């Protein structure tokens, strides 16, 4: 757990599912804590599930993009999954497309992108 955000491990992947509304301060703390968790668990990939976000402003979007870049510097690939249609539309309309960040439709696709094979 990071604060009240559960962190799950699936093999060498860390799964962060954010279900609460992030204040700016909490978002920044969470960013640091994720990086520490990557180091602690020796993970090679990170999945951030944002299905729980019904809106994302430029502050939170920047934190997500930065976290992905920071994780990459540590050798960990990040995929952000579950962005809702309303959030995608809002971010693009505002002019922020989060370049350099990888996205997948849902958790299944995200894990697939990271090389996990899910038995069906």
């Amino acid at each position, binding site marked *: 757990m990071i604060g009240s955000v559960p962190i799950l491990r699936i093999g060498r992947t860390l799964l962060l599912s954010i279900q609460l*509304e992030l*204040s*700016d*301060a909490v978002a920044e703390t969470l960013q640091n804590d994720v990086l520490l968790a990557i180091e602690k668990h020796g993970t090679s990939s990170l999945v951030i599930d944002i299905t729980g976000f*019904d*809106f*994302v*402003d*430029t*502050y939170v*979007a*920047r934190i997500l993009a930065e976290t992905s870049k920071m994780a990459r510097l540590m050798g960990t690939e990040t995929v952000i999954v579950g962005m*809702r*249609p*309303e*959030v995608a*539309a*809002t971010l693009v*309309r*505002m*002019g*922020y497309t989060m370049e350099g960040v990888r996205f997948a439709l849902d958790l299944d696709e995200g894990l697939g992108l990271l090389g996990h094979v899910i038995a069906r």
Partner: protein
Amino acid sequence: MVEVISRVEVPIACEDDVVVVRRRVRVLAGQRQLDSFAVAAVTTATSELVRNVFVHAGGGKAILEEVTDGTRYGLRATFIDEGPGIDDLERVLRGGYSTAHTMGLGLSGSRRLVDRFEIETEPGKGTCVKIEKWAPF
């Protein structure tokens, strides 16, 4: 003629007020038949504008109004501060410019998310941003 159905004033004094104000906007917008895209748009714009009042002006207030023009409903939000004002408004509204080394997409982006966007600012006096988002016909 636009009629005001309800009006509430909310202080913006600390960082948590960003969360408080946008929550109220989200609830009001949902109640007034705005669709999920419109709710996300006006909630996001509110988040940006409240943060600006707190970060760039050190505080101020928000006025949230439910409005109707007789055929449909809308939400009007006004963000007022007595901070330093904005020197180069044109540049700020083009987007990508920030004195805080952040995204610089708050004002320009919010403008694109709402149906009406008005800004008045005077260096040394303060800033007032008014937005409206209307339910579709």
